[in-house]
């Protein structure tokens, strides 16, 4: 095992573990009243954002969804600024005006989460269109939910990207439920990658809980996008470990599925890669996890101590409206 391969596998696991524990801690903060509003957990889907973002350059772009914490963190968002935004503080990514559903970092090419399902895809088309006009060697990955694949915005975007041959990778995160409705009840074709063929887009379905499989596939498509062969679509099959948002207990999720995915958890699979492929011991892994947890704890302390925007600053901020 080469050292850089080992380091790479560690970085993938670290990112997934960070996303998982960021959210678990944030949910505690929610229960304690520090976080209000909507909070859509990415629990169980961490391998997708991690694998895709690891395959991209940071001069590329991403668009995210309402379930967007994982994408931001995998793209490299600072934990402190993330927590600060979730707590509505002035030093958050959006000065506390966006919150969980609208976290974005435009200065780092993260075009942000989106509260309207399906509406991020046209924005991704636009970012890719700009790249194509400027003739730059960049690409865009657009994370979309299974629910959005039944929406016109997504389908129009698939067609536009194909008609204009844009450097765009659509990443369907098929967690099998649109709020509480099963994907089989939402569409006559629940194998969602097949939507690509109708628009002339090369498409594939893969195990979205295996971070290496996601990474390897994305790596290939990212490169091909930059070679002018785009767009592409990858459907990552996964499972939402919890309800639609933190106040939805998800009682409609069938027990056998929940049990199956407990064993097919992206973190367990990531851990297996670390021991089997990178030769890490349980103690090595625990060390990584402790480091992440310490970072999360610091970030929470930072956020809780951070100020909120004053009324005066807000009124100044909106003067031009």
């Amino acid at each position, binding site marked *: 095992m080469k050292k850089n391969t080992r380091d790479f596998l560690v970085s993938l696991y670290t990112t997934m573990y960070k996303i998982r524990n960021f959210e678990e801690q944030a949910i505690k903060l929610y229960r304690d009243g520090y976080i209000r509003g909507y909070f859509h957990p990415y629990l169980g889907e961490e391998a997708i954002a991690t694998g895709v973002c690891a395959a991209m350059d940071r001069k590329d772009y991403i668009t995210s969804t309402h379930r967007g914490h994982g994408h931001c963190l995998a793209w490299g968002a600072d934990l402190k600024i993330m927590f600060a935004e979730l707590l509505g503080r002035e030093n958050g990514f959006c*000065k506390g005006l966006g919150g969980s559903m609208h976290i974005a970092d435009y200065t780092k090419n993260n075009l942000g989460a989106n509260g309207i399902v399906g509406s991020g895809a046209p924005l*991704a088309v*636009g*970012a890719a*269109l700009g790249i194509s006009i400027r003739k730059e060697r960049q690409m865009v990955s657009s994370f979309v939910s299974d629910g959005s694949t039944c929406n*016109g915005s997504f389908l129009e975007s698939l*067609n536009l990207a194909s008609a204009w041959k844009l450097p765009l990778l659509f990443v369907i995160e098929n967690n099998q439920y649109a709020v509480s409705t099963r994907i089989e009840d939402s569409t006559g074709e629940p194998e969602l990658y097949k939507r690509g063929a109708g628009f002339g887009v090369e498409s594939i379905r893969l195990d979205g809980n295996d971070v290496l499989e996601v990474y390897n596939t994305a790596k290939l498509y990212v490169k091909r996008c930059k070679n002018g062969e785009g767009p592409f679509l990858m459907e990552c099959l996964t499972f939402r470990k919890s309800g639609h948002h933190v106040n939805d207990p998800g009682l409609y999720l069938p027990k056998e599925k929940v049990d199956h995915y407990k064993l097919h958890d992206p973190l367990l699979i990531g851990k297996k890669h670390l021991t089997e492929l990178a030769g890490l011991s349980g103690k090595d892994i625990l060390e990584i996890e402790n480091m992440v947890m310490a970072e999360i704890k610091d970030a929470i302390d930072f956020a809780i101590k951070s100020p909120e925007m004053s009324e005066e600053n807000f009124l100044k901020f909106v003067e031009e409206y």
Partner: protein
Amino acid sequence: MDTNILIEKREIMYRDALNEALKEEMARDDKVFIMGEGIAERGGSYKVTVGLLEQFGGKRVFDTPLSENGFTGAGIGAALTGMRPVVEILFIDFTMLILDQIVNQAAKFRFMSGNTARVPLVLRTQGGVGNGLAAQHSQSLEALFYHIPGLKLVMPSTPYDAKGLLKAAIRCDDPVIFIEHKLLYMNKGEVPEEEYIIPLGKADIKKDGSDLTIIAWSGMVPKVMEAVKILDGEGISAEIVDLRSLVPLDKMTIINSVKKTEHVLIVQEAVRRGGVGSDISSIIQEEAFDYLDSPVKILGGLNVPCPFNLNLEKLVIPQTDDIVRASKEAVYNK
């Protein structure tokens, strides 16, 4: 020597003025590009984009599929990442297909991001009653966009204003809804050869007057001009305030004119109910009530969809005679 020959004034059509604005801005800034339905080779339904494809090539001037929501969103995405797109929606009626992208996306990003995102997008479209285009192609829907914080809203009435305001709109870092009027494209007006820009948010006094302030915009302005000639003959001196931009709204010019004339008529082509005129009326009554000598009068379209039949079509929006009659009512408080 007659100097008038040397400084002959140049008159061009509204559509050509818009065309010049696009050409000048595209030549100035290679981040500006335009897309829409039939705007490239065909040059647009109203010939506004003629010659742009030849001059700037297919990467910056191109046709879209009929996916209004998708390509408007693409314009927003491009704007978020450093481009300056001009997106054309063929009829304002079709903007009902793009409301999510305009209202929930373009209008919100600057705010939701705490000012780190900007959306320098111009959405060009055209509205108003034409000649028998019926209920789905004749609407005046500016009030919908006026209502949404985060958008600028521009509705020029003359070739001069159209050119100067479109150039300002393209340079603006916020999304601008730029509404043209389908009956104005062939109107001619004076447009200088040299470059100029009209800042957004400045109304224009199209004619001075002392007895009555008539506030109008877009396709109603030429009709108000006709009406004012008749009123002049009858001893009523009306001042015409052409708003040009509805957002930002030039309150100061409105209020100053009201203070001078003490009588106000607002003329809007859009249906009367829930229109921009109602909001302007409330602003006047809040800020200049003591100056008013009679109630603010609003002349708007009937609260009905636009009929196909040409005689009935004339009936549903204000005509010159209606403006003359309403002006007298405003002045004589009848």
